[in-house]
């Protein structure tokens, strides 16, 4: 049995409401809430970035896994907001957490699915017997240009998963990928904000890949939507995952726990992994979880998890996702948001 032996998440305390963003641009908040199903989003503090979020999430994963960090043989961080263009994020993380130096690290990038890429490879390495444990992280301080529709969703947060062969809390039964050259969203070198092709990001990009990957995963596993207790999909907003899930035959009830985008926003590489984290926080032994990510460019990774008895031993060993999502929030206005996201040019 190979799968998740420890998991953890982290979300910043700061929040901005859709109303506060809409006010600045003369938009109608009611139509955004109704159309995109977004209410508020997390905002990283001035001293937070993808690496600090990854460290905080990985610490929680280590608390649950109860392993010696030195035994982790691979660390992969998936993000589209790595603080350095050239320099791996994970080298800072391994030093902070006492991992390595006998460790293989890499920064992954595949728009919003870099986190599940890391999970996919980490799981494969453990399965191949190359490493005892592998740490996979999806985290982002997502960028959205001022005034762009992305500004309502682009948020910050991440989740970490330690893969191993002993004391598995969620066995990875099946995984797959579905990839094509579909340029729906991109950021070129030296550009600060991503660009996107409007409605092209919907049907030909998100829905085609998520639904195709989902269908292939169901075929591969010979399972049906009703065999699952939970389902989670990449959440570019609140609406898309619900539509994709229903197309595949899942119900709102199955998607409810992992559907956190309305209050978290889109944490890009940390989106569906953080939805999975919320599910693991309350899953029971024997529960089956269906997960499909999405990264623009474009591709989807799919996973099927079987929750084991061990889950009950680890759930309370670290803060749960809802602890971060629901408590201790600090609401900021657009001015503070502009400062925190460094949208104001200072005369330094």
């Amino acid at each position: 049995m190979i799968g998740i032996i420890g998991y953890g998440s982290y979300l910043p305390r700061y929040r901005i409401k859709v109303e506060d963003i809409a006010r600045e641009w003369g938009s109608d908040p009611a139509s955004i809430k109704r159309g995109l199903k977004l209410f508020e989003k997390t905002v990283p503090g001035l001293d937070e970035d993808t690496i600090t979020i990854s460290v905080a999430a990985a610490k929680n994963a280590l608390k649950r896994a109860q392993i010696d960090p030195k035994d982790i043989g691979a660390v992969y961080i998936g993000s589209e907001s790595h603080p350095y263009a050239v320099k791996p994020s994970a080298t800072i993380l391994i030093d902070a957490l006492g991992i390595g130096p006998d460790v293989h690290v890499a920064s992954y990038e595949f728009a919003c699915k870099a986190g599940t890429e890391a999970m996919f490879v980490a799981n494969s390495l453990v399965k191949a017997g190359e490493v005892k444990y592998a740490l996979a992280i999806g985290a982002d301080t997502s960028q959205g240009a001022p005034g762009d529709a992305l500004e309502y969703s682009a948020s910050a947060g991440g989740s970490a998963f330690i893969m191993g062969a002993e004391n598995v809390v969620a066995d990875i039964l099946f995984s797959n990928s579905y990839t094509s050259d579909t340029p729906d969203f991109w950021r070129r070198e030296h550009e600060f904000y991503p660009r996107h092709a409007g409605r092209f990001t919907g049907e030909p990009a998100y829905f085609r890949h998520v639904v195709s990957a989902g269908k292939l995963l169901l075929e591969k596993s010979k399972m049906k939507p009703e065999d699952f207790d939970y389902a989670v999909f990449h959440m570019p907003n609140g609406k898309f995952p619900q539509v994709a899930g229903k197309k595949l035959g899942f119900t709102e009830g199955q998607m409810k726990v992992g559907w956190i985008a309305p209050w978290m926003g889109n944490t890009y590489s940390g989106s569906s992994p953080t939805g999975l984290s919320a599910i693991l926080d309350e899953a029971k032994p024997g529960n089956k979880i269906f997960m499909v990510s999405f990264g623009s460019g474009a591709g989807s990774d799919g996973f099927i998890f079987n929750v084991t008895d061990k889950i009950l031993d680890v759930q309370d060993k670290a803060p749960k996702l809802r602890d971060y999502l629901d408590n201790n929030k600090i609401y900021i206005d657009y001015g503070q948001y502009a400062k925190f996201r460094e949208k104001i040019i200072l005369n330094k």
Partner: protein
Amino acid sequence: MRDVAVIGFGMTKFGELWNKSIKDIFVEASLNAIENAGVDHIDSMYVGAMSSGLFVGQEHIAAVMADYLGMAPVPSTHVESACASGGMAFRQAYLDVASGNSEIVLAGGVEKMNDGADVTAALATAADQEYEVYNGVTFPGLYAMIANAHMHEFKTTSKQLAAVAVKNHLNGFNNPNAQFRSKISIDTVLNSTMVSDPLHLLDCSPITDGGAAVILCPLDMAKKFTDKFVKIIASTQASDSIALYERKSFTSLNAVSNAAEKAYKQCNLKPTEIDLAEVHDCFTISEIVVSEDLGFFNKGKGGLAVEEGKTSIESGEIPINTSGGLKSKGHPVGATGIAQIIEVYEQLTGQAGKRQVKNARIGLAQNMGGSGASCTINILEAI
């Protein structure tokens, strides 16, 4: 001038056609039209397209389409008159046949709007760049001014505007080629996002990819190809000031009334003798204003008429936009004028299915560009 008939049609589904290029779309519609008409060649062709250059970066569109349709070396001409490009292409094809210059002519229209272009900016090139667009107004703003003036002058209400959208969606529900086949309510329209007061999102036609084509030939030749043909009994065109501010009134569209007056004279008919009309409902207010300028209702009474159901398929008075109109069927700007002709043709040849208007003999198609600076009207008669 000799009599001319429409002998066949073809069109693509209207919508977001992500997997089809502008060439695919035009060729699909045109091949369907050629097959439907049963002709083995065409003598010339006209391509209505508003702005393939801005939408997909392709100009020289007439030669491109003749090439991809496999029709080179036939003469192929691009006709542009903003959102009236399709209707104008049809009129040029009509004149080509009527004059005796050509026998079998294809009139097509196409637009590929969903390809990453800034659609609002591209469409705004149909307004006055110096006096309108430079000052920040785009088409929703221009038609909102028309709507506000109509509401002020004639007490037209938002509910009456919404009634246009509700009716057209009801019609489009039965049109397999329509972009939005969903029934909506007055409340849905009134609660949709405000785009430009008083126009809500559902008062506006959508952004659409699509193509449409028809085949024309001399009336006395039509029987050779098909028993489903209609006669073109009027084809007119008019223009007006490009900018709204230069007009004496915001509540009338002079190009429409001028083209209508000439058209009725050409076929010696009165507005009351028209059985159905496809009109240019790029915004709900335009259907109301146009229905008045075409003489179907007295000036100022268009809103009340739609609210009272006088323009529905069942009413029998004057069914308007039985296809679903631009609002529900979709508005690929260059293709719209041809798609209107197709709806009238289908109605007059009894092929409109659940949208069929009983005993339809005379149908009118009104297509306009910008905020009514250009307009073409074509009236067809069942044979």
